[in-house]
């Protein structure tokens, strides 16, 4: 479904990704793990067209997307939950959700999707007329997830969706990911809760210094000594 082939990218003159190879198949949950500064977020930003690769190629369903602007990539069905959320903090919760729907089909289905989101996240319905910026971190994270789902993604990219959340909220985020996946949405996620993520994921990649250094099934990575030592703190 999504394929990155020797992708290089970075900011200004500084290259962060030194040739990343990564693949996500239809229906999978794929995890990307690695330490801070390894280039995980840069990879996610490059897939979504916020950054352009300087070399290599990114294809989605066999078509090249590496020179496309973000809105065209969203139209193809790739929607991201960015690490810093990037909510419309001065606007209402309802406005944020409505803004999540930008493609033709997402706009025509948005009333039903809105109802669905309010069922999935009852807190958001209670706060629909409240400014997004006034909500708690957990509520904001749920809103970011719901906003992305309003875009009817085929591939949902999650960049640290549980960052800074209390344990029971982390659980809630993982529940949502599971539910979303059951509805047939493919998931690519970056997560710091390595153990939980790898248990959920079909496959995982380990990233170090802008390169993929390991790739295996989630369970195989969970049992790998170097992964255990570096990321599971045992």
């Amino acid at each position, binding site marked *: 479904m999504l394929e990155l082939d020797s992708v290089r990218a970075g900011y200004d003159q500084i290259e962060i990704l030194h040739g990343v190879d990564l693949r996500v198949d239809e229906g999978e949950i794929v995890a990307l793990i690695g330490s801070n500064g390894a280039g995980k977020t840069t990879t996610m930003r490059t897939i979504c067209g*916020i950054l352009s690769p300087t070399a290599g190629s990114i294809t989605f369903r066999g078509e090249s997307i590496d020179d496309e602007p973000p809105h065209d990539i969203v139209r193809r069905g790739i929607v991201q939950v960015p690490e810093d959320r990037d909510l419309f903090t001065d606007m209402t919760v309802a406005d944020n959700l409505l803004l999540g729907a930008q493609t033709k089909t997402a706009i025509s289905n948005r009333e039903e999707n809105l109802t669905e989101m309010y069922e999935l996240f009852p807190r958001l319905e209670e706060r629909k007329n409240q400014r997004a910026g006034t909500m708690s971190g957990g509520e904001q994270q749920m809103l970011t997830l719901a906003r992305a789902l309003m875009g009817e993604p085929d591939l949902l990219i999650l960049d640290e969706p549980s960052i800074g959340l209390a344990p029971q909220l982390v659980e809630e985020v993982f529940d949502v990911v599971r539910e979303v996946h059951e509805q047939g949405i493919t998931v690519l996620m970056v997560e710091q809760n390595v153990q939980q993520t790898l248990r959920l994921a079909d496959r995982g990649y380990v990233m170090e210094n802008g390169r993929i250094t390991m790739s295996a099934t989630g369970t195989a990575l969970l049992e790998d000594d170097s992964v255990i030592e570096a990321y599971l703190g045992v």
Partner: protein
Amino acid sequence: MRLVSSVALSLPLQGGGLGRFVDPFVQFVIDVVNMEAVLLQLLVFGLLLGGVYALTALGLTMIFGVMDVINFAHGAFLVVGMYTVWLASTTVGLSPFLGIPLAAVVLFVLGVVVHVLTVEPIIEAPQQNQLIATLGVLFIVQSGIEILFSPDPQQVSLSLGSIELGGVFVPRGQLYALLIALGTMLAVRALLNRTDLGRRIRGTANNREGARYVGINVPRINYLTFGIGAALAGIAGGSIALFQRFDPFTGETYLINAFVIVILGGLGSFPGAFVGGLIIGLIQVFGGYYLPGTTAQVLIFLLFIGTLLVKPEGLFGGAGA
């Protein structure tokens, strides 16, 4: 009553050099105490002017709110609006009231063209770049108009007269300009708050990165906003032409006041532009009546500097577009 007038009479005696600047304020207070009829007249003039000022600031604040661009070309857009109405009226005899919507269309197109050619290529560059580029556009357009139509003042021949309401004169030209300004502001408000495009514009103004993540075509929002901002300047310029003579450089004065209004009200704020416009209009009218020469403009700049010192985010700053 008599006591107060005797105070007024004694004023020149106590006023030395400084008195020239203090006396007008004292006189103003005396007039307020006496409830002079002139105050009501000045208030009406101030509100009439303020409404139009608010409209001149609206496009400026909108463009800043969405893309953080300080658009000096706005002054040129105002002038093109004035000349469009004038040209349509003098050449094909189009009524200025139809010339104003025409100016909106002309300016929308001009705004999009200016944006695509000068702003979009450097939109990611630091702010001073767009400021200099749009200042260049201002000079080019002003000179272009000067070459085409001479630097002489022009005026739209309209004898609208005025209405009198309870001893207060309301010039029809200014009244219509105010009504057009109010109507336009309500329309823009409805566009922003009640349409999908408006929601996208507000979203892009609030968080450009977020807008890109959800799939809003941000470059398109940019040029549409620039076009709408320019169209608002066209309507403002056309309305000003209803009651004032103008030359290729009239836009500059309005531009400077528009900047003061935008800072006073809060960059990117709509209610700010409206309230700021009224405040500046009132200061200009009252100042013009009480203060010597062009001291009113000094007062406006003092207010500008004071805002930056005391409340740099402006009256309605930080609340979004």
